[in-house]
C-alpha cells in the first residue's frame, strides 16, 4: 500500500502562510513559551484537584490490615486533614519556589526524585527519535521511490508497525529476544542493552509515521516545479531526491516529529512500565497508583517543561531548515 497523496497539504499551506503572520513579532517563541507556561500552571492546578479527589495516599499506605485509627493517624501525618483549599493555597506558594514537597512514600523531595530519572527517559526519547529519523527517512524514500515489490514490502511493514501497539510489540520482543534468545535483558535501565527493546517498541510506530510523512511529502513534492527545474538542469533522480526533494520534505517531517515527542512520552509510560525501565513514565505511574501527589505533580511539571522545550527547539529547528520562516520576503 503506498501513500498516493495528491494535492497541497493544509499544513504546508499553513506553514507557508505563517511567516508573514509571525515573523517580525518579538516573540513567537516568547508567546509560545508564555502560553505553554500558563497552561502548565493551569494543568498543575487541575492535576492538584484531580489527584486529590482521586484517592487517599493514606489508604494506600495503610493497607488492608490497618485500623481506622491508623488510617486517620497517617492522614494527619501527611497533612491531608487540612481543608483542600488551604492545601491548594500552600501548593500555589510552593509552586512559585518550584517546591513540590516531598514524596509521601519515600520522603525524598519530589522534584529530585523525578529529575533523577529524567535522563533515562531523555535517552529513551532521543534514541527513539533518532531511530525514527534514521530508519524512517530511508523507509519513506523507499515507499515513495522504490520498485513495486520493495514498495509493497516496506508498505506492509509500515502498516504493521503502525498497527501493533507498543505493549504488544514489547511483550513479543521480551519473549523473543530476552526469554528465547537471551540476547537482551528483559528489564532494567542504565545500560545500553536495556535501551534496545524499549526503543524498538516505542520507535516502531514513529518510524512508520516518519516514513509515511516522508513518502507523502516526496510524492506531493513531485508536482513541485523546482524538482522539474532540477531535472531540467540535468540532475539525476538521485540528486534531485537527496538535494532537492528530501530537504524540502524535512520541515514538515521535523514539525511532525516535534509533535511526535509528546506522543512518545505517552508511549514511554507504557513501555517503561513494561520493561521496568526506570524513567519518568514509570515513576509517574508508580506515583499515581500510590497517590503520591507531590511526585505526580513534579512528574507532570517536568514532562510539561520537557514538551515545551522540545517544541521550542523544534520550532527553532524548522526555522533553521526553512529560510522562509526566518528571512523576510519581498
Amino acid at each position, binding site marked *: 500500500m503506498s501513500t498516493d497523496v495528491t494535492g497541497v497539504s493544509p499544513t504546508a499551506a499553513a506553514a507557508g502562510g505563517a511567516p508573514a503572520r509571525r515573523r517580525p513579532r518579538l516573540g513567537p517563541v516568547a508567546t509560545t513559551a508564555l502560553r505553554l507556561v500558563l497552561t502548565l500552571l493551569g494543568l498543575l492546578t487541575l492535576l492538584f484537584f484531580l489527584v486529590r479527589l482521586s484517592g487517599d495516599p493514606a489508604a494506600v499506605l495503610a493497607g488492608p490490615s490497618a485500623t481506622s485509627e491508623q488510617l486517620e493517624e497517617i492522614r494527619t501525618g501527611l497533612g491531608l486533614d487540612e481543608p483542600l483549599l488551604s492545601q491548594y493555597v500552600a501548593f500555589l506558594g510552593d509552586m512559585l519556589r518550584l517546591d513540590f514537597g516531598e514524596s509521601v512514600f519515600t520522603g525524598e523531595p519530589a522534584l529530585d526524585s523525578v529529575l533523577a530519572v529524567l535522563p533515562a527517559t531523555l535517552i529513551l526519547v532521543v534514541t527513539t527519535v533518532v531511530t525514527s529519523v534514521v530508519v524512517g527517512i530511508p523507509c519513506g524514500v523507499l515507499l515513495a521511490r522504490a520498485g513495486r515489490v520493495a514498495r509493497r514490502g516496506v508498505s506492509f511493514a509500515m502498516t504493521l508497525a503502525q498497527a501493533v501497539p507498543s505493549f504488544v510489540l514489547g511483550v513479543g520482543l521480551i519473549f523473543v529476544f530476552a526469554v528465547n534468545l537471551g540476547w537482551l535483558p528483559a528489564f532494567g535501565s542504565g545500560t545500553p542493552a536495556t535501551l534496545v527493546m524499549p526503543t524498538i517498541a516505542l520507535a516502531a510506530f514513529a518510524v512508520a509515521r516518519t516514513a509515511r510523512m516522508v513518502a507523502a511529502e516526496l510524492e506531493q513534492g513531485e508536482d513541485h516545479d523546482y524538482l522539474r527545474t532540477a531535472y*531540467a538542469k540535468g540532475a539525476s533522480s538521485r540528486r534531485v531526491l537527496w538535494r532537492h526533494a528530501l530537504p524540502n520534505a524535512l520541515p514538515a517531517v521535523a514539525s511532525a516529529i516535534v509533535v511526535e515527542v509528546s506522543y512518545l512520552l505517552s508511549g514511554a509510560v507504557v513501555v517503561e512500565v513494561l520493561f521496568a525501565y526506570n524513567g519518568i513514565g514509570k515513576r509517574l505511574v508508580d506515583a499515581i497508583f500510590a497517590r503520591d501527589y507531590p511526585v505526580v505533580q513534579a512528574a507532570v511539571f517536568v514532562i510539561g517543561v520537557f514538551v515545551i522545550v522540545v517544541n521550542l527547539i523544534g520550532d527553532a529547528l524548522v526555522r533553521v531548515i526553512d529560510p522562509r520562516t526566518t528571512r523576510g520576503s*519581498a
Partner: protein
Amino acid sequence: MTDVLSIEDLWVEAGDPRDPVTLVRGVSLSVEAGSVVGLVGESGSGKTVTCMASLGLAGRGVRITRGSVRLGGTELVGADEPTMRRVRGGVVGTVFQDPLGALNPLQRVGDQIAEAVQLHRGGRRRAHRDRVVHLLTQVGVPDPARRARAYPHELSGGMRQRVAIAMALANDPSLVVADEPTTALDVTVQAQVLDVIRRATKDDGRAALIITHDLGLVAEVADRVAVMYAGQIVEKGSVAEVFAAPRHPYTQGLLASRPALEPGRRRLSAMGGRPPLPGSWPVGCAFAPRCPVAVEACTTPPPVDQSDGRWSRCWHPQVESMEGVS
C-alpha cells in the same frame, strides 16, 4: 540552416495504459539554429506536453508512444538517462511558468544557478561563483553578487524569473525552451522579462522554443509560430505570414478575438464554442464544431495544406483576409 530541435510525428499519451488519454497526436516541429519558435495554443491543446515530453520532463504517467525527437543530432526518444541528463541543462535550458515554484525554496538562488553549472562542468559549486555573477548580470539582475545569496522568497517575481532564465543559460545551451515565461508576471514586469528573453535568444543567436497562449508574446519575439489545437498543430509558418494572413480558421479566430488597446467601447469579434479537452476531441477536424466555415468534409481528418509555401491542417484553408470571421 540546421535544425537544433526536430520533433517528428510525436504522439504522447497519459493515464492508465489500459485506457490512455491521448494528449499529442502527430506533432512535427523543428527549431532552426538561431531562430525563435512560438508554440501557441489554449489550455489543453498539448503545447506544454509536447515540449516537456520531448525533454522527458512531463512527469509520471506521460508516455511518448510514437515519433522522434532529435536534438542537435541526438535522438531523445528512448535515450538513456545519462544522455538525457547531458542534454537537459547542457544543450537545452528550460524556463518554467511560475518562477517562485521553479526555484528550490530552501537554497540560495546563486547556489541553484551554480548547481546547474556544476552538473555539467563538474567542480565545486563555489568555484562557479564568478559564472553565477556573470549570468545574473547577463539577465539584468542588479547587484548580482548580493542577489546570489538571496533565497527565492526574498526576490520579486521579475527577479525570480530572471534567475530562472540565468539558470537556463548556465551552460550556454543551444536551445532555450520557455513555457509561458511571462504569464505569471505583471504587465510592466512582463515587458522587462520579455526583453531579457529576447536578448538571450534572438539577439544572441540562440534558438528558442517559446510555449505560450499569448499571441502578443509571439509577435514580439518569435520568428516562426506553430498553432496547436486539440493535440495537433493546425498551422505553422513565419510569424509575419501567419499574423498577416492566417490560413486556418482557428488561427484567424484567435487573432481576431484579441482585444485591442484602443479608445472606445466596441464589440469584440469572438469565436463560438470552447476548446475541447483531451479525451473528448471530436473526430475529423477537431475545430469543426466551432468553425464558422465547417462543411461536411470536416468530420473526417483534414489533410495538411501546403500550398503557397504555407502549412495548415484544414480542408479548405481560408486564403481571404480574416475579416470574414465573426
